[in-house]
């Protein structure tokens, strides 16, 4: 699938992928912000307020009803962490007219999308006070809700402890204590700043309906003077010496998270070795961790590791019985030692390559994944095609994997423990 990229304004690009494969079209608008304590809460609140209404559809009710009439066009607005960036993303997916029997709705949909982004509902030059107050409350609830999903909570706690002092430790959902000070003017001024200074990427995947996609950007934003590009993350190589953190909570299952630093930037060729090494170590059901911790010792239902690309971290997590903490930790350490000593088979390597290949190739079957892939390449300044990426992975050698995994150093051990449980003697 061929994609083209065109600069249509300062820091403003349009990326097109035309295909007839799908029954719908997908348009994403990505605004790139730094992940920063000063604006993370504002950015998290923006999508919630913007979804409340536009100039012509001044309420959620009116906005959502209009979208439903357009055959359930799916509007989403989100703010999420990508390395040390926060991405404010607007997306619209709609059924193509060839299937709904009503062609010609595309321009209505684009008009609607433009309005959501550039013409939000305003009162006296600022966001509606009523909507804002409601969404501030909802944001606080959402922030507090992070405890409901224990697995994700534990991972975020590990990141927070491990990356203290780095931007990456900033919780991407915002901070409760920063919410009350926000008023309509502060938020609106911030949004003006987002629109006028962020790098903006428009990504379209779908049928070539001769759409005027550039038309979603108002003239005044075409040539913005002061666009700030977010710099690439720094990578910390040095690990803390087994920084150990334990939270006690009323839970049935213990959550163990290990944070490692690999210190291999994605621009480095060796990064491919890390990618495959992690796949063998804890990537899927064929990994060393899955085979040992789960299948052989029955200690966990889930145990896996993944890479944080932009920071070159490896995060590993498992849900276990509280008393199996040390046993699990020993097995994990042992597994990593095996990797570094090269105790994995050629077949393990082949399997890892195939696994990465299959998931890469599947990207082109989904409009959302295509869009994320195109955008992901932009923020990592990667010019390679999907085929080239796959090819480079094929060329990774055993030595590359050993070398890469040798750089993986344990930094932080986080454990969500039960209440009042006696800690047995643990020596690490």
């Amino acid at each position, binding site marked *: 699938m061929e994609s083209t990229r065109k600069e249509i304004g300062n820091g403003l690009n349009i990326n097109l992928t035309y295909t007839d494969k799908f*029954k719908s079209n997908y348009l994403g608008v990505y605004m790139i912000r730094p992940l920063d304590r000063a604006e993370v809460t504002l950015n998290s609140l923006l999508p919630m307020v913007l979804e409340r209404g536009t100039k012509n559809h001044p309420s959620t009710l009116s906005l959502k009803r209009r979208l439903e009439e357009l055959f359930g066009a799916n509007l989403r607005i989100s703010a999420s962490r990508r390395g040390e960036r926060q991405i404010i993303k607007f997306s619209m997916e709609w059924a193509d007219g060839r299937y709904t029997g009503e062609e010609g709705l595309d321009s209505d949909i684009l008009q609607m999308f433009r309005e959501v982004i550039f013409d939000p509902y305003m009162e006296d030059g600022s966001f509606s006070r009523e909507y804002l107050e409601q969404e501030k409350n909802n944001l606080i609830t959402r922030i507090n*809700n992070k405890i409901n999903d224990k697995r994700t909570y534990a991972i975020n706690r590990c990141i927070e402890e491990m990356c203290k002092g780095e931007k990456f430790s900033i919780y991407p959902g915002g901070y409760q204590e920063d919410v009350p000070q926000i008023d309509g003017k502060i938020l609106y001024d911030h949004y003006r700043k987002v629109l006028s200074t962020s790098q903006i990427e428009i990504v379209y995947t779908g049928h070539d309906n001769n759409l005027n996609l550039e038309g979603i950007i108002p003239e005044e934003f075409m040539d913005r003077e002061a666009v700030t590009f977010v710099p690439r993350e720094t990578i910390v190589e040095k690990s803390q010496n087994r920084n150990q953190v334990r939270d006690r909570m009323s839970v049935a299952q213990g959550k163990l998270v290990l944070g490692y630093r690999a210190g291999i930037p994605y621009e480095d060729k060796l990064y491919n070795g890390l990618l495959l090494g992690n796949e063998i170590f804890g990537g899927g059901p064929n990994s060393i961790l899955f085979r040992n911790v789960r299948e052989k010792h029955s200690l966990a239902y889930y145990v896996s590791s993944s890479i944080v690309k932009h920071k070159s971290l490896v995060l590993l997590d498992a849900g276990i019985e509280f008393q199996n903490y040390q046993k699990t930790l020993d097995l994990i350490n042992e597994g990593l030692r095996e990797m570094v000593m090269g105790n994995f088979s050629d077949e393990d390597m082949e399997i890892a390559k*195939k696994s990465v290949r299959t998931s890469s190739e599947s990207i082109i079957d*989904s409009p959302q994944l295509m869009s994320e892939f195109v955008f992901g390449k932009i923020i990592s300044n990667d010019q390679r095609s999907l085929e080239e990426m796959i090819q480079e992975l094929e060329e990774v050698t055993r030595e590359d994997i050993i070398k890469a995994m040798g750089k993986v150093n344990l930094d932080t051990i986080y454990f969500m423990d039960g209440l009042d449980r006696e800690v047995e003697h643990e020596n690490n």
Partner: protein
Amino acid sequence: MKTIRNENLREEIYHKELENGINLFYFPKKGFTKKYAIFTANYGSTDNVFLPLGENEPVELPEGIAHFLEHKLFEEPDEDIFQKFSSQGAYVNAYTNFNQTSYLFYSTDNFYQNLELLVKFVQSPYLTEENVEKEKGIIAQEIQMYQDNPKWVVFFNTLKAMYHRHSVRTDIAGTVESIHKITKQDLDTAYRTFYNPGNMVLFVVGDLDGDEVIRTVENAGKEYPTTLDRVERIVADEPDEILLKSIEERMMTSKPLFNIGVKDRDLGLTGKEAVKKDIITNMILDMLFTSSSEFYNELYSEGLVDSSFGAYYTGKRTYGHSLIAGQSDKPQEVYNRIMAMFKKPERYLTQEAFSRIKKKEVGGFLTGFNSIEFIANNLTDLYFQDFLLIDYLDVLNEITFEDIITRFESHFTEEKSVISIIWPEMESGNN
């Protein structure tokens, strides 16, 4: 081979019942890289009392047995199934729900080899006393993971309040106690009965050669001496009435969570009628409980609910319920407002809302067809209700506003409604 085509959707599906008893469907998806196969036994957590194949007396097996069996089928004497699939470039997985156990994989390469492996491993169980014991630790961790999930607990408590005896009220994976009772013999009995090809279906979706798909499954499938049409299941006699009006529990969560369940007594339908009821009920719930409804917006602007508020209906032959879920500081107040609305829905249940939601359903369904997983999973689910997914839009188009009103009046009543609440139990921890 039979071809079933739907003109509106511009899609077609091929069906063949093979000599070895396997019911095979192939859905071509031109231009897609990923190819997907899902092999399903009509056997879920609700089927734990049944007549074993070739016997006359029903047996009752411990809760969680279907799910346990799903874990165990991955075991083979001489090879690691996960590894084998991975070495052929496939991603394999399985899941068990109330009604079915599915084994699936997708790959971009070596599809036919993987398909052969799928059929073979599902049709050749390898159970030993030892490997059955080993699995108990893993499944116990899976169960405990769910016990810490307040959304899961609030949901199952709702079922426990609605149902007196129906097995839908028990946890899909069972309990730590019940799975420890499971023996190799139990698993053998369940396998022998429910994994008979007559009780299974195989769906294949992707850009493939239909003849090659058939040949592969024909060669891989095992010969079965007897194929049965239908497993005799014993469903407990479930009263129309709910068991409890409300059920409450404390857990570690930030805000109270609630589920309001409405028990359905219009049961026993199959085929088109069942699907039609399903769509109608879900349309009603969309008209009332999504962000485009006035009712939703009233509660939202009063701060009684937030964007997590929503509802859906699910139903099979022997049970069915609508579930309205969300979080609120005043769950009881939300419940009261919903019950009052059930008595006077006219403002919300309008012809205008109906037309709008219908359009949305059409778009949502079409967009779903971008995903081969959506196609295969929904084909499977509806197949066991004797319905083919590609005719879905036709049924949707037949639905009238009168259908909506009739169904609303029979289903949505206070006497069939329960509320389940999880209250927070805040602890400081030591961070």
